């Protein structure tokens, strides 16, 4: 089955490009370290997922590019075409002349409705090119105006137009400071809307990825391109083909469906985080060897100690002893030590994956009381190595990891909202104070895990 990627805004388009590029590089990788037959079926599955065949033989990405200003899209189209290995469909993009100006309201209430038909037409055409459509993968940042505002709007349109398809939103969490001043407003508005229309949100934090670039990749002068390439590598490590069940004879046909089934057991909890190991510069990779038990041990500790990378993990954090469960709804204001999971998915690629012991992830102490490890933990595997890594493990988890980040962003936005700063910029485009309040309410609920059907009493 195929996935249609929708790239929105500057960030979405730049990352979308890197994702296709990473997938294509992996596709052509000579480091597959597996049988020819294995490699062929891997490539077959990869192609079906992400590329459509062309007469010219150059694979064409199954993607729709959307931005409100032209510079990024024209740049993205041309560098993809220059690669010679793949390209975008030259009909499958939409841009305007004037960006959304970091204003979520402009993207959501003005540009979204104005260009809905054109954009949804492009999406429809792209979807029709797929023999079977698994769903949509949207890539966007929360900080700006087009990715966030248009992204939220387009996601709703996708939900309406394709009620049975899966929608996974890749959301880029902005740097804590320095990108866009109104980023906390834009993030609150984006998250609360996506929360209602997406099946799951996959979150990458710029700050965490930036650290990976500095500490693991050893990059001195880090550019957005470096950050985006790490994100793309992580995404590729999950979305390239795998066997999604024990003893499966063919590669999973429904990557998005399998992902949702594994990781989103309850519609109230759908924020997913992604970690991978190992991750290092190509130079160091040449001189490194890894053992599966070592990698898995690190990955598990990264999960429970909520570390984004293998360096600087707090090894003191332990799961609670049986009989003394940590309340899963721990107050976000207290320091969170142990990161409780709702569900986890481990993706293993490369040498000897069959022999890997993942018992550590089956410990009931890792999970909430309402889901047992048999349901909460899934494994995908393939002996095909990924992107020059002889062994690589990725973990997608639905856990408490976002609570603190979310609390932070909601807190800052609320603080600004209390002084009414910048609100006039949004009312200009039809987003009123009440709309802000609704969004704050949705996110405060999401954090406490209170369902929308529980009667509410608000005070502020």
């Amino acid at each position, binding site marked *: 089955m195929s996935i249609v990627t929708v790239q929105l805004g500057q960030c979405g388009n730049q990352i979308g490009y890197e994702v296709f590029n990473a997938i294509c590089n992996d596709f052509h990788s000579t480091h597959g370290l597996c049988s020819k037959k294995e490699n062929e079926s891997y490539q077959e599955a990869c192609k079906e997922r992400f590329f459509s065949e062309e007469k010219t033989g150059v694979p064409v990405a199954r993607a729709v590019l959307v931005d409100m200003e*032209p510079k990024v899209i024209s740049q993205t189209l041309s560098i993809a075409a220059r690669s010679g290995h793949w390209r975008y469909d030259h009909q499958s*993009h939409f841009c305007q002349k*004037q960006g959304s100006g*970091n204003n979520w309201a402009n993207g959501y209430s003005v540009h979204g409705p104005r260009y809905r038909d054109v954009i949804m037409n492009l999406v429809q055409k792209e979807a029709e090119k797929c023999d079977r459509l698994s769903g949509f993968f949207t890539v966007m940042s929360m900080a700006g105006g087009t990715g966030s505002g248009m992204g939220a709007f387009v996601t709703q349109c996708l939900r309406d137009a394709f009620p049975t398809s899966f929608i996974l939103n890749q959301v880029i969490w902005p740097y804590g400071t320095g990108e866009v001043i109104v980023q906390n407003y834009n993030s609150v508005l984006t998250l609360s809307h996506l929360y209602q229309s997406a099946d799951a949100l996959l979150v990458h934090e710029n700050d965490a990825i930036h650290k990976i670039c500095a500490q693991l990749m050893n990059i001195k002068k880090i550019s*957005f391109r470096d950050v985006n390439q790490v994100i793309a590598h992580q995404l590729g490590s999950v979305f390239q083909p795998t066997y999604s069940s024990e003893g499966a004879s063919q590669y999973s046909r429904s990557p998005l469906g399998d992902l949702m089934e594994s990781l989103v057991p309850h519609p109230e909890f759908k924020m997913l985080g992604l970690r991978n190991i190992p991750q290092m510069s190509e130079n160091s990779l040449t001189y490194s060897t890894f053992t599966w038990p070592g990698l898995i041990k690190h990955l598990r500790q990264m999960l429970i100690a909520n570390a984004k990378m293998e360096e600087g993990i707090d090894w003191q954090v332990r799961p609670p002893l049986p009989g003394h469960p940590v309340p899963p709804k721990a107050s976000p204001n207290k320091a969170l030590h142990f990161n409780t999971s709702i569900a986890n998915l481990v993706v293993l690629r490369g040498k000897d994956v069959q022999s890997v012991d993942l018992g550590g992830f089956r410990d009931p102490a890792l999970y909430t009381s309402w889901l047992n490890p048999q349901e909460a933990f899934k494994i995908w595997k393939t002996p095909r190595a990924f992107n020059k890594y002889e062994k690589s493990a990725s973990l997608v988890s639905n856990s408490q990891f976002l609570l603190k980040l979310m609390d932070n962003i909601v807190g800052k936005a*609320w603080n600004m909202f209390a002084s009414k700063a910048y609100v*006039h910029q949004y009312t200009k485009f039809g987003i009123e104070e009440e709309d802000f*309040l609704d969004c704050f309410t949705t996110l405060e609920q999401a954090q406490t895990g209170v369902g929308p059907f529980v009667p509410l009493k608000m005070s502020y």
Partner: protein
Amino acid sequence: MVPSTPSLAVGRACVSLTRTAPGTRGAGLSEAWFGVGGASPSPVGGGGAAAGARAPLLTAPGAATMTQSVVVQVGQCGNQIGCRFWDLALREHAAVNKKGIYDEALSSFFRNVDTRNGGGDADIHKGKIFSLKARALLIDMEEGVVNEILQGPLRDVFDSKQLITDVSGSGNNWAVGHKLYGYQYREHIVEKLRRTAEHCDCLQCFFVIHSMGGGTGSGLGTFVLNVLEDEFPEVYRFVTSVYPSGEDDVITSPYNSVLAMKELNEHADCVLPIENESLFSIVSKIHQMTSSGKLGSTVKQNSLLTSSAGSIKTEQEKPFDAMNNIVANLLLNLTSSARFEGSLNMDLNEISMNLVPFPRLHYLVSSLTPLYTLADVNVPSRRLDQMFSDAFSKDHQLIQADPKHSLYLACALLVRGNVQVSDLRRNIERLKPSLHFVSWNQEGWKTGLCSVPPVGHSHSLLALANNTCVKPTFTELKDRFMKLYKKKAHLHHYLRVDGMEQSCFSEAISSLSDLIEEYNQLDATKSAPGTYPSRLKIAM
């Protein structure tokens, strides 16, 4: 910015609008800059046809895909700065655009027209450069400066359809500029603005350049601002306003400035205040450092912030050119990300969105660094970091203000050249502890990365601060206004102009007082203990 004596050496009466200067270069500026046009006339639109044959990459074939801006330069000061802007803009584009092709970046400030064979007015959207015309409107109520421009090397960039002049000046009287000439020339102004706008397919921003102290720039300049709001409500209005200094010898400059301030408060999206004293001290500083010998030999050619080197300007430099070049560079850097690509674009509409938390508090204090680049080594990061530090120092601000010791509401860093996101992050982290941000915007930073540096530089920074440090400029203005107003000095010159009432003065001063009060209230939060509003509580 300008010598405040209104008299100018250039002859007024006898200079007609037709070019009297020796016009030997047939194809004019475009040829000089881009090596195109000229003797062998290729078929008109030939370049365009060739370009059209390729599959268009984006949207409709032949249509420009970027936004455009229009500069409205009003009064003597506005026109002199504008003139430097167009000169340096051409220099910048010529440095980037080696092939002489009319590209998207050029289209944001220039039209491309074929003026041969009687000069059609049709725009040529693609292909080679024929003749570049500034997207500008030049307004002055006397003819001196404008005529000088029309006889100078920039004459080909403008044509008579872009000019509005009168002969008698505004006599340093806001009321004459705003009320008298405003009403007299309104139709004229609207018509020319519309014509300029019609040549744009996505007009994003008007840049008004004027001074506050005189009569035309201040009075008619703010009148134009009103017209822009009425006629083009969707288009952003950025105003570059040169404030008079304390020793200004125009005695009525406090009146003119305060009357103009009310209009800026109400009708501008963003105002970039500039003070002559600051420009003067920056120029002296550069002069001192480059002529001290120690650095002189290693300063990279063309890299002075005040430099006209390599520009079209051939005549001898005027004393104010260096100062005006600084303001011209401010506008170039402000618009760089809208013209050139980068890894973190910053469009013009993002500036007001991020930097203006409340509608009236739209005064942005700017600083430009580095003042020059040394030619010896390739950028050590220490020097890059110095560029960031300097941007926050008192000496580099374009008004007399000290942002470090006042309160930031928001701050933007527009970086050009070989600078990465990690450089930005490192410097923000480094500088943050020494700056005070308002409690609800502790992380009020907006950044842009444009990959094309200014001519002669490897990198540059424009910092825009929404900071309460603008307040002293305003309170000083208010004090000087009150000194005159208490005595009713010179009021009769204003009140005899039709439509000018005494209430105009009282409303203007109360508008200014309100603005100062808004800054006062924010300043007061600086010393107050940080109390944060309690969050929404969800009943379980």
